[in-house]
Each structure stands twice: as structure tokens, then as C-alpha cells.
């Protein structure tokens, strides 16, 4: 049993179960998250195709729908109740299961120990538990698709009273209960994961890995985890109260309700209360989804532009700024709830302020790309795609953040366009960029780049073709979450466009098959990966391709510089890995140190203390080298 003991003391022969199922190795858990996330993504995408079919061809019957869905597709038409359930499940699966757990779970697990120089997570056991709670929660959510009354149907935001009254619509019955059970497990899983990520980053960095030498991926995972730890508990509280309203006859969210002409004996609650609690999570959640993608983009863009990331400290500052602000803007989802206009104004101003750190990130990406020696790998294309989507979707956020405009645009397709570009597609692009970039680290093989290009261009085109036209529908007042628009004369002009969107969605989804094929085919048949395929500076590329337990065969390497020393003039190569020692390099290439502040007495006139301090202050914002 113990022949291969030479590498590392706990590198023993493992059973199948402990290696692939109940693994405590961060690399394996990352893959488990990724595969689970991909499965959920496929389910969520198929669901969206079903309701796009309904939106594109509302008058047509599809007999195969009945054989597929039974009573939900009677006569070949999608049942209206099931339509709502499908929209709900699509949103839930995509937001929470794919882009929260799938994205953050995969890359936090894979990259945190690798890039900070640790052998594993702080608590591998809790890490495993976190995955298995997520798995259980995924299974319950999927099971809810098969219960007789259908899955939850109150939208991914599960607003009461619809979600609170089991008798309201079929989807508010068992489906909603399972939704709540599943999300409770999800919250527990997310909490365990985040606690692990935070403490690992703070406590287990290798020697020399200062906080200001962390790759921006790690900073993004850190801020994401902090948001998760502070916002998901509020969703938990909201869910607890909702569960009591549903099952124990309370009226936290209910007042003056009539169902089928009959008054319910529920008084004194407020559905708006739920919205406050939900969006206190909900808004940070959209950044929980986005920030890991932004971190991945920083890393991929710098590596493939062969340039130092522009404004490293500004990037950290904007992550922190976004994190802080995202807790105090939730009211922008509630402008039409009749909130006090003064409060509306406060939320509006805060919301518009959050555009500033977002813009800082965008401009820093553009500045990093500017005059770079661009290497258009598939990962790079997806990262640039993210920047594009972040701009297109972010700009409409500023429209929506304006209360006066939002009162017209709220709950129209304009909002759907906004968040699918900036959250849905941008984060998905970040995730895909991450997969293409770190695939060699996960599987020791390269993905096929040609297929990657094909995948990128088809996806990129499809995303814009699907979501961009929705802006115009929204501006015309077409509401979201409607089963069909045939009953409304003024919307009939959008019928053709709706069909066009549906066709684009089908083609865009089909393009994902290329990716899935490439992914699984390359695991077996891909080209063997070199140790450092992208000539990258970060620590994960110093680990052996075979991905051993404990990550490094010998000592954990020490770190001597930040991760973005690309194309330094005078260096032998266009990258200087973080492990290269300063004394191996000529003076001008050494890791930059902050200049000592000269004593006033012997300082030359132009370098008085204030000046040095001021230049340091500018340096904080990435404006000037100290």
C-alpha cells in the first residue's frame, strides 16, 4: 500500500471513494463544483429554451411538449402556470447554482490554495461538507421539478404573497417548500465555503505573499466571500419568516388578502418587508456573482496582454468600494413600492455612486489592454467579452438607477436586458474564461483552441442578439414574466423580434455543445499541458502538472514580488514569476519598494516629505509610481 511515500507524508494510495467522492482535496472539490455547476447550467438552459419556445411561437402547438411534460404541455402548449415555474427555476438555478456556487465554488477552491501558496484550505473537512450540502441542495432543487404541483413559481425573488400562500398557484405548494429547503441548505453550504475562503486567504499565505502581492483573483474571492457571509444570513432570516407564514399561520408578510373572493384571516404583515430583506441579500448577490468573474478577468487580461495590470491598488480599492456600496443600494429594486421619495433619492444617489468603482475597473481593463502584446487565447477572448458585456449592461444600470426612469422601466424587458448582459452573460463569460485558462491546471491537458474560438464567437454573437433587442421592447413597455403577448394589440409588433430572439437563443445554446464536447473530450484526448502554458507569473503554475496532494512536492515556494511583472524592459523573458528572487535580477528589475521618506534636513528641495506622501497617495489609485 505504501510504495509511493516519497513525495509527501500523506500522499498515500486512496480509495475511489476518498479520491473522487468524499474528497477533501481542494482541487477535486473544485472539479466537483464545476461539474455540478455545468449540469445545473445545462438544465437551466434547457428550461429557458422551453419558455423561449412559448414566447417565440405562442400560437403554435408542439405535440412533443405533451410527451415531454405530460399535463404541463397539454395539447402541445406550455401550461401558463408551468411557464411561471420554468422562469422561476431558470433564474434560481442560474443565479444561485451556476453563477454563485458553480463559479465561486470552482475557482475559489481551485485557486485560493494554489495562488497564495498553501497546501490546501484551512479546513478541508468543512470544505468537503460545503460541497456536499451544495450537492444535496441541488438535488432537492432538481427534484422539485418533478413534483405533481410543479416547482416554485413566484420568480427567483420569491415575493410573497404569491410564495407565502400554498393555495395561491400550484407552484406555491410543495414546489415552494422544496425551494426553501434547498435554499436553506445552500446558505449553509455557502457559509461554510466562505468562512474557509476568508480564513485561508488571511491566514495561510506563504512567506512573502503580502496582501498587496495577492493576485486580483484572490482579492475578488475574498470580497465575494465577505459579501456572502454578511448577506446570505439575511436571506435566511427572510426564508425563516416565510416558512412560518406558509406553514404556521403567521402573517409576517401578509395583510388584507383575498383569494377567490374570500378574505384570509391574516393581518398586520407587509410584503414590502420581504422585499427589503430579500434585496439586502439580492443586491450584494449580484456582485457575489460578478466579482469572481472580474477577478478572473484581471488575471487573464494581464497575462495575455503581457502587461502589468493597470492600477493594481485601484482594482483592490474598487473591489472594496463595490463591496461596501453594494450593501446600501438595495432600495433601487423597490422604487415602485411606494417608498418615500426622499428615501428613493438616497438610494438613487448611492446607486449612481456604485457606477464609479465599476467604471474604475472597466477603465483599468482597457488601459491594461492598451498597447499590450495581446495573445488571443480563448480565455482572453472571453475575458475581453466580459469587459464588453460589463460596459453594455452597466450603462443601462445607470438608467435604471435613476428613480424617475425606473418607474417606467421597472419589470419590463429593459431590466431583463440589463441584468442578463451585466450579470448573466458577463459572469458566464468570466466563468468560461476561467475554465479555458485553468483547464491545464485542473486536468493536466489543453483544451482545443480552435473549438474555443468557434465557441467564443458563436456565444458572443448569440448573447448580443438575444439580449440587446430586449432593451427596445422594454422601452416600449413590454412587461417581463408574461406568458404571452398575443392579447395586447400594441405589443404585436414585437412578435417577430420575439421569434428572432428565440431562434438566437436556440442557436446560442447549441453552441455550448461545442464547449461541452471540448471539455470532456480534452480530459481524455487533449494535448498534454506544459507546466506553465500561458507563461504566467502566479504560483499555481509552479506546481507539477500531475496535481499532487499538498500541491508542491517539496517546500512551498516563497514569494518575492507582485504577480504582474510582465514585459519588464531588460528582463530576459517577458514575465518574472512571483518566485524569482530580487538578488537574481539587476537593480532596476527588483520588486518595487516604497521609497523611504527623506528627512527634511537633507532632502533636496523638490522631494520634501509632503511631495513624497502625495505621490504615495496618488500611487494608491494607481496613478503614479512611488
Amino acid at each position, binding site marked *: 500500500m505504501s510504495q509511493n511515500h516519497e513525495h509527501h507524508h500523506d500522499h498515500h494510495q486512496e480509495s475511489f471513494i476518498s479520491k473522487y467522492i468524499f474528497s477533501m482535496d481542494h482541487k477535486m472539490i473544485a472539479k466537483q463544483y464545476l461539474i455540478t455547476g455545468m449540469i445545473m447550467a445545462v438544465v437551466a438552459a434547457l428550461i429557458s429554451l422551453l419558455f423561449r419556445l412559448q414566447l417565440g411561437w405562442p400560437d403554435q402547438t408542439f405535440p412533443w411538449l405533451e410527451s415531454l411534460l405530460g399535463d404541463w404541455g397539454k395539447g402541445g402548449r406550455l401550461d401558463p402556470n408551468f411557464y411561471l415555474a420554468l422562469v422561476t427555476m431558470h433564474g434560481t438555478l442560474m443565479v444561485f447554482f451556476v453563477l454563485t456556487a458553480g463559479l465561486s465554488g470552482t475557482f475559489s477552491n481551485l485557486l485560493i490554495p494554489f495562488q497564495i501558496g498553501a497546501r490546501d484550505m484551512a479546513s478541508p473537512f468543512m470544505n468537503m461538507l460545503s460541497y456536499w450540502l451544495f450537492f444535496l441542495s441541488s438535488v432537492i432543487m432538481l427534484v422539485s421539478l418533478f413534483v405533481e404541483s410543479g416547482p416554485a413559481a413566484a420568480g427567483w425573488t420569491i415575493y410573497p404573497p404569491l410564495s407565502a400562500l400554498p393555495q395561491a398557484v400550484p407552484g406555491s405548494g410543495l414546489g415552494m417548500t422544496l425551494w426553501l429547503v434547498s435554499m436553506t441548505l445552500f446558505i449553509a453550504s455557502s457559509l461554510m465555503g466562505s468562512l474557509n475562503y476568508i480564513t485561508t486567504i488571511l*491566514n495561510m499565505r506563504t512567506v512573502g505573499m503580502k496582501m498587496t502581492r495577492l493576485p486580483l483573483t484572490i482579492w475578488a474571492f475574498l470580497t465575494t466571500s465577505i459579501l456572502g457571509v*454578511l448577506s446570505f444570513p439575511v436571506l435566511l*432570516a427572510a426564508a425563516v419568516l416565510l416558512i412560518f407564514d406558509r406553514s404556521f399561520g403567521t402573517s409576517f408578510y401578509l395583510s388584507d388578502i383575498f383569494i377567490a373572493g374570500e378574505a384570509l384571516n391574516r393581518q398586520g*404583515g407587509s410584503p414590502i418587508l420581504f422585499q427589503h430583506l430579500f434585496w439586502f441579500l439580492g443586491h450584494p448577490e449580484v456582485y457575489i456573482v460578478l466579482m469572481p468573474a472580474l477577478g478572473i478577468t484581471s488575471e487573464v487580461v494581464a497575462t495575455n496582454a503581457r502587461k502589468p495590470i493597470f492600477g493594481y491598488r485601484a482594482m483592490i480599492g474598487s473591489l472594496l468600494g463595490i463591496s461596501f456600496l453594494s450593501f446600501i443600494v438595495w432600495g433601487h429594486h423597490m422604487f415602485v413600492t411606494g417608498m418615500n421619495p426622499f428615501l428613493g433619492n438616497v438610494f438613487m444617489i448611492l446607486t449612481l455612486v456604485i457606477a464609479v468603482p465599476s467604471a474604475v475597473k472597466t477603465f483599468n481593463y482597457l488601459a491594461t489592454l492598451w498597447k499590450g502584446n495581446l495573445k488571443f487565447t480563448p480565455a482572453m477572448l472571453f475575458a475581453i467579452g466580459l469587459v464588453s458585456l460589463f460596459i453594455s449592461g452597466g450603462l443601462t444600470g445607470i438608467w435604471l438607477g435613476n428613480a424617475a426612469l425606473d418607474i417606467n422601466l421597472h419589470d419590463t424587458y429593459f431590466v431583463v436586458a440589463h441584468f442578463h448582459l451585466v450579470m448573466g452573460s458577463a459572469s458566464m463569460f468570466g466563468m468560461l474564461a476561467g475554465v479555458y485558462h485553468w483547464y491545464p491546471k485542473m486536468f493536466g491537458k489543453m483544451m482545443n483552441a480552435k473549438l474555443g474560438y468557434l465557441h467564443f464567437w458563436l456565444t458572443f454573437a448569440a448573447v448580443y442578439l438575444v439580449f440587446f433587442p430586449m432593451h427596445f421592447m422594454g422601452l416600449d413597455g413590454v412587461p417581463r414574466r408574461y406568458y404571452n403577448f398575443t392579447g395586447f394589440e400594441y405589443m404585436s409588433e414585437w412578435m417577430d423580434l420575439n421569434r428572432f430572439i428565440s431562434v438566437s437563443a436556440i442557436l446560442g445554446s447549441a453552441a455550448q455543445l461545442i464547449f461541452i464536447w471540448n471539455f470532456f473530450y480534452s480530459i481524455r484526448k487533449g494535448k498534454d499541458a506544459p507546466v506553465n502554458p500561458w507563461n504566467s507569473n502566479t504560483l499555481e503554475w509552479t506546481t507539477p502538472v500531475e496535481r499532487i496532494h499538498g500541491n508542491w512536492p517539496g517546500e512551498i515556494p516563497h514569494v518575492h514580488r507582485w504577480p504582474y511583472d510582465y514585459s519588464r524592459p531588460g528582463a530576459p523573458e517577458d514575465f518574472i514569476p512571483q518566485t524569482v528572487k530580487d538578488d537574481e535580477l539587476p537593480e532596476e528589475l527588483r520588486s518595487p519598494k516604497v521609497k523611504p521618506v527623506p528627512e527634511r534636513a537633507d532632502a533636496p528641495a523638490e522631494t520634501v516629505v509632503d511631495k513624497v506622501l502625495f505621490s504615495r497617495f496618488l500611487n494608491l489609485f494607481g496613478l503614479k509610481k512611488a
Partner: protein
Amino acid sequence: MASTTALTGKKHIWDGGAEPYGASYGKLMMWFFLLSDAFTFSALLLAYAALRFSAPSWPVPDDVFASIPFVHGNHYPLVFVGIMTFILIASSVTMVLAVEAGHRGAKNEVVKWMIWTIVGGIAFLGCQAWEWTHLHHDGAWWGSNPFLNADGTPGMVNFTNLFFTITGFHGFHVFSGVLINVIVLFMTMNGVFDRRGTYETIEKVGLYWHFVDLVWVFVFTFFYLI
């Protein structure tokens, strides 16, 4: 740690290779968990505030919580809950003593103080059980409130809804705290921490216990005092 020093000539706690401020990852995790849990309770208590202040009138706590076991017919507001609160705070004191004994590695003292802490926790839960039973007996439960509002109108049902939900959620925390304390007690008795060479687990459990105590102070204030 030593290697950090060698690298920079000066010790910088955030430079990597060492735990900043010497805080172990387990303790950090506990702190972050408590922060998270604080947000859960804050959300619940804010929901309480929102519902209470949007209600036209509300029952008077002094009239609702005025009974003591075995004493009939009299009006003793705050006495019983005062006893409960005292018990819980006393159990925090014994927990501090357990942690302190742990620092010295005095196993028998740790065992003694942990037992007292557990007794305090169980006593608190017992009191809560009695109070709930008593209120239930008077017709109070989720979805029904027999107590009139201050202005004499029929009582807002959310008064009892919130009371049972939030004190129940807190009671659940106390209950899990007691369970954890029992587990840790057995670990202490079996010498697990002596073998590990550190009683830090007691400290972590202690943090949780104090937190649950602190939350009670808020629950107590909002439900019984005002």
C-alpha cells in the same frame, strides 16, 4: 514566523508565512460565523421593529409576561424573565472561568466550569419551556394572540408570531450551544485537549456562548422591556 523575519529584517504581520495577530484559522472562522449570525438576528429584529411600528397598537409586555411558576394571581412583571436573564449571564461567567482554566491547562477545573455552564444553559431552556407552555395555556401561539393591545383593541397577532419565532430561534441557538458544550465537555474529560496541547476549542465554544448571551440581551430588551 522566523522565516518572515529573516526575509524582511522586520516582522510584518501581513507579509505571509504567519497568522496575522496569531489568530488561528478556527478562531477567525468562529468570529466570521458570529458576524454572519449577528446579521441573521439583526434581520429578524429589524423585521420585528418594522412590523411593530407599522401596527396601530401593540400589547403591553408588562401585562403579558407577568407570571412566575407556582405563584398565582399576582402581577410580577419582569421577575421571571429577570431570573432567566440572570441564569444565562451567570452561565457566561462560568464559561469565562472555563476558558481561563483552559489557558492554564487545568483539566479538572475546565470540567467543573463546563458542567456549570451546561447546567445554566439547561436551566435557561427549562425556564423558556415553562414560559412557552404557560403562554400557550393562555391561548397564545403562532397565529393566535389572546392579549389585548394597549388601546384595548384585539391584540395584533404578529406580537405572538414574532415572540415565538424569535425567542424560538434564540432558544434553538442556546440548545445547540448546550449540545456543543456537552461534546466539548466529553472531549475535555477524555483528555483530547491535553493531547493536543491546547484548550483553544474551549475558547471558540466560549465565543459562541457569549454571543448567544449577547443576543439574548437584545431579545430581552425588545420583547420584554419596551
